[in-house]
């Protein structure tokens, strides 16, 4: 029990749902860009309770899903190298690369892969295995990248020279910008990711206002999500399109300056490939020159190889909100969690996987 459990209160949720229903005068398509929102909305049953006029779209908010197939191929290749221990979040274990390879299969073929809860735990691996290179696979958005950056700094302070990072970190605002600039874009509002926002703050999203799309930073309890949706609908009614903080107990308007400073000390931005979407300018984080000796790309000579697009896969359209998961011709027929074709089916946080898992 925490003092914050009231944010789950069913009675309050019912009141908010009623209010939301009443406030909707016409359909509204909103997109969340956070895998934890995707799961929270389905797991809590909200997906089945939302007014039918409110259309829930799931954007490129799952960092595992948007890890590009060429990036997946690179870390699977890395796992097969002699003298390398791969340390990873559990999320990446089953993500398929070209030809259906994944880290679980690499492990079965003899690769040493260790699942850790925190990047910090990978430092212990480096300490215990001085003869091996311990490579942490850096995935995640602005919430995760500072934790990885802090770990890289600590590794340097502790002179753990055998700790390396393979960074595939990505940034949320450039992806939102790419979505908004898409001519087929049909998103009418954004539910913004609460924990990314705890790091980057409100200002990072200001450009959304130029597109006249209401955007609300939301927490993850049902009451948080419903209130943020209501704030979104109310904005449209008033003809407003502002970035609003609906999660003030966690998100300071200024974000977390120390985490941001740590992130930009260790990383610099670069163009990045997003699975299902393609290249987005300045949307990735690579190690800054000062940390080049920790960069697994450089130290172990890893390169991203070109990969073919997945035939028939419409994940790009799903991630842009053009198609709902169950409208994709491959959904449940060819593409399943056991045999995912595209990124949205890859992780439990993916939009197609969530539909598959939770939708009646």
């Amino acid at each position, binding site marked *: 029990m925490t003092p914050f459990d009231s944010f789950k209160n069913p009675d309050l949720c019912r009141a908010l749902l009623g209010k939301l229903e009443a406030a909707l005068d016409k359909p509204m398509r909103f997109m969340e860009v956070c895998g934890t929102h995707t799961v929270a909305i389905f797991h809590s049953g909200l997906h*089945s309770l939302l007014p039918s006029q409110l259309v829930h779209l799931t954007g490129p908010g799952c960092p595992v899903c948007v890890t590009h197939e060429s990036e997946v191929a690179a870390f699977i290749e890395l796992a097969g190298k002699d003298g390398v221990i791969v340390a990873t979040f559990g999320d990446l274990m*089953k993500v398929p690369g070209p030809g259906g390879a994944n880290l679980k299969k690499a492990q079965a073929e003899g690769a040493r892969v260790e699942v850790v809860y925190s990047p910090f735990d990978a430092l212990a691996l480096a300490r215990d295995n001085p003869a091996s290179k311990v490579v942490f696979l850096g995935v995640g958005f602005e919430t995760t990248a500072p934790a990885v950056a802090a770990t890289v700094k600590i590794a340097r302070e502790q002179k753990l020279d055998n700790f390396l990072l393979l960074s595939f970190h990505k940034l949320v605002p450039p992806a939102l910008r790419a979505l908004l600039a898409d001519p087929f874009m049909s998103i009418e509002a954004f539910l913004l990711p609460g924990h990314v926002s705890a790091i980057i703050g409100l200002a990072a999203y200001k450009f959304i206002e130029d597109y006249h799309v209401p955007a609300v930073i939301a927490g993850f309890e049902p009451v948080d999500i419903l209130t943020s949706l209501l704030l979104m609908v109310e904005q449209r009614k008033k003809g407003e399109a502002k970035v609003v903080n609906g999660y003030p107990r966690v998100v300071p308007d200024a974000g977390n300056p120390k985490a941001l400073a740590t992130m930009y000390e260790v990383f610099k931005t670069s163009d990045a490939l997003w699975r299902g979407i393609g290249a987005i300018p300045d949307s990735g984080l690579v190690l800054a020159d000062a940390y080049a000796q920790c960069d697994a790309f450089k130290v172990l000579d890893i390169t991203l190889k070109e990969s073919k697009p997945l035939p028939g896969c419409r994940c790009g359209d799903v991630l842009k909100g053009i198609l709902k998961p169950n409208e994709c011709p491959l959904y449940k027929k060819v593409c399943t969690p056991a045999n995912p074709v595209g990124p949205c089916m890859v992780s439990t946080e993916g939009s197609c996987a969530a539909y598959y898992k939770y*939708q*009646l």
Partner: protein
Amino acid sequence: MTIERVLLDYGSGGQASHRLVNELFLKHLGNAVLSVLDDAARLDIAGPLAMSTDSFVVDPIFFPGGDIGALAVHGTVNDVAMLGARPRYLTCGFILEEGLPIEDLEKIVASMGAAAAEAGVLIVAGDTKVVPRGMADKIFINTTGIGEIFASPAPSGHRAAPGDAVLISGTLGDHGLAILSTRQGLSFDAPVASDCASLNHLIVKVIEAAGDVHVLRDPTRGGLATTLNEIAGQSGVGVFIEESLIPVKPAVAAGCSFLGLDPLYLANEGKFICILPEANAQAALAVMRADPLGADAVRIGVVRAEHPGKVVMTTPLGGQRLMGMLEGEQLPRIC
């Protein structure tokens, strides 16, 4: 005993093997049938019979609330009991890794002896092999159990029928979380012990009190969610459950929340699902709650004809969603 570690010789069938059998295994597991030490056990038992086998490779071998030995007895006793049977005899096969401390082996075997005595079963046959270091992880145990079916008709995963009530005997995910809390790299402390226990005595009481019980299952690997899906599939019915009624210890829920896991997919080793006609549900619950192993028993849902093969969860908000099967094991996640 003067030896300290298991040597390859102990699986050779020679003098060393005999010493291990006499001084360790018979000391803790011996009984009138086993101690004859013939090539096979002679049993006097009449059908219908329930028989089950399971192999135990749990890591770590000692965990909060139990060890691999106790688990190997409870696990098979429970599987046999779930058919409405009285488990009578177990066999056990050991694969030992060279170098296993004898002290650990003795602790495990003693724990099996205690678990068997508690469950009222005899271990009537056994085998031990020792493999070179690195060829196995410390100790693997297989147990096979046999028992007499007394329920008529016997419970089965195929017998869930629309209108039945779905009961669970206690809190879910305790064993799975207790094991996870010991895993290197996850580093957390949880005041949660494995629930591993033999359920056979309680099962007898439930069937005697409730009469025809349609389904009994222990939700081990894959947890409640997986087992209910299996039942829904076997019986061709929809299982409808209410999230707010499902008992989960706060510490289990908390441990799961930061690892990104769902407790309803975590293993249990001392719980059972009981599906029976609604009219008998209260009688079954009363018996369960009067027993320490069923103190937290509750009714969590019903069986319906709609959505055959699926498990439908009503959430605390009143929404509905599927509770599906997982593709593989749950992994700690950050997103």
